[in-house]
């Protein structure tokens, strides 16, 4: 494994009196694509929010690029990592361009205006997210899929080494799911960005990731490669429902089908 860019040690957190994470430790290497899977309420979102610096009231240790949050300061940290929240229908009347431009925030100072490198980054992010034609549309007039692409574009415009995403493709239609998956894969493989994504769909997770962590009841239940994860007995114990694995026509990994739903 390459040098760890995110190190988490014994991370625990209580939210409104409940212990949500119970001593989570993980090391994420620079340039890795890491998926976090697990049942609802396991603590996946909480974990990502802790890494993103949104929750601050935790115990344990998190270091990003070798330094703690306090040593980084809010703007330097934001130059290192960006975050895409769960798409929960949140919207604003900002246009796509205005919103993506906000991704440049950590690179700006209060008294200067945007420079050409900022416009370049914004343009590139909008283009790679396939939003060029929506540039001047307001976020609250876009479809869920387009809006999600705008959130990812804003995170890309931030030009960080790490990209944290919370269920980037849940609630999206097939085309947008494929677009999101392709964009994240490209960011990781071609631009060397470390991607940490919560995924609900096991097949998306296994096909994109280098490694996966499964969280259950606030602790890491399993970690391993996609091949190790695509195992019906293992997934069954994590999710508490039946799974079947069948050979996939177009990839070496088996395809996972949740048996309970069939």
């Amino acid at each position, binding site marked *: 494994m390459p040098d760890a860019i995110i190190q988490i040690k014994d991370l625990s957190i209580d939210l409104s009196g409940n212990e949500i994470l119970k001593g989570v430790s993980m090391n994420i290497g620079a340039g890795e694509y890491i998926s976090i899977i697990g049942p609802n309420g396991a603590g996946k979102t909480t974990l990502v*929010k802790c890494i993103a610096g949104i929750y601050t009231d935790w115990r344990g240790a998190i270091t990003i690029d070798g330094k703690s949050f306090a040593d980084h300061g809010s703007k330097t940290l934001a*130059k290192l990592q960006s975050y895409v*929240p769960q798409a929960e229908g949140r919207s*604003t*009347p*900002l246009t796509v361009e205005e919103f993506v431009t906000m991704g440049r925030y950590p690179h700006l100072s209060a008294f200067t205006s945007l420079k050409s490198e900022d416009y370049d980054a914004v343009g590139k992010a909008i283009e790679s997210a396939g939003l060029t034609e929506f540039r*001047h549309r*307001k976020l609250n007039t876009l479809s869920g899929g387009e809006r999600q692409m705008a959130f990812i574009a804003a995170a890309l415009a931030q030009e960080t080494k790490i990209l944290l995403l919370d269920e980037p493709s849940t609630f999206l239609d097939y085309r947008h799911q494929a677009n999101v998956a392709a964009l994240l894969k490209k960011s990781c493989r071609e631009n060397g960005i470390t991607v940490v994504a919560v995924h609900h769909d096991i097949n998306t997770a296994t096909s994109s990731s280098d490694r996966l962590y499964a969280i259950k009841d606030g602790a890491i239940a399993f970690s391993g490669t996609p091949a190790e994860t695509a195992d019906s007995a293992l997934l069954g114990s994590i999710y508490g429902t039946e799974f079947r694995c069948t050979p996939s026509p177009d990839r070496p990994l088996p395809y996972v089908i949740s048996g309970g739903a069939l």
Partner: protein
Amino acid sequence: MKKPILPLLILFLLAGVALFVSPLFGMKFIPYNAAGQERDILLNIRVPRVLCAFMAGAMLSLSGMSFQALFRNPLATPFTLGVSSGAALGASIFIRLGLTFSFLGISGTSLAAFGGALLSVWLVYGLTKLKGGFSTPTLLLAGIAISFFFSSLILFIQYVSGLTHSFRIVHWMMGTVATADFGKLLNLLPFFGIGSLLLAFLHREMNLFMVGEDIAVSRGVNVGLVKKLIFLASSLMVGGVVAVCGPIGFVGMMSPHICRMLVGADHRYLMPASLLFGGLFLAFCDTLSRTLIAPAEIPVGVLTALLGGPFFIWLLLNRKGDLEL
């Protein structure tokens, strides 16, 4: 980049025209070349009054705009959040106690109003945060609760005051710029200056807050500090206005909302637009209040409330799901 320069320019010109033309109207039309007593009335009463109305409107509008960004709710305004009542309570206590100190030339009433405003912002924010979010019901209920509580305290202060005193409080509570003079203008100025400068530097942060606090954090905003600065700036402005003009309602709700339709939601443009529109709007309403039933006057707060009530209902009826900015 597509910039809404034209609407801003038009607002700017309109504001200029309004500032120049409004002083002419009142109980009686007085042209700029008038002489003697009329000239006195024009220059020493009407001109400061119009300027006062403009500045107060701008301040109310800006504070409404920043509350709406921070609470991510178009119904968050100095009035609905109970911040105006808090400021009014602060000022009433100060007046009732007969205190007369001032600090750096700023009247104690204004400072007391600022303190009251700050207290209510803190209470409302704490209450909604405790309930886990800025949903419209929580926000409005918290605002109403605080507003009622402070208003009752003001009523109590009125009750234990003498007749003339309580009449003055009642009149002031309706919201008026009728007593404005250059002294009061000077009293507004520091609150306007500091408040609007602070907000001008925080336009990017307000954009991010409008999307969500988590997004603001992940973009590198020092959330704790910036939030305090924005609350400070808006409380300064509400306190400053309430001390001089009383709680004038609904400007802080209508003006930013209309401006968002004119120039969009980017605070870089929304801020100057809200400033100009709010000022323009209150200066216009005050001109109406001087002329509609001349020689008598309608308190301008009554007029803005008459316009604002229906607007508020329109906003409520037009919401898609939960209210969106």
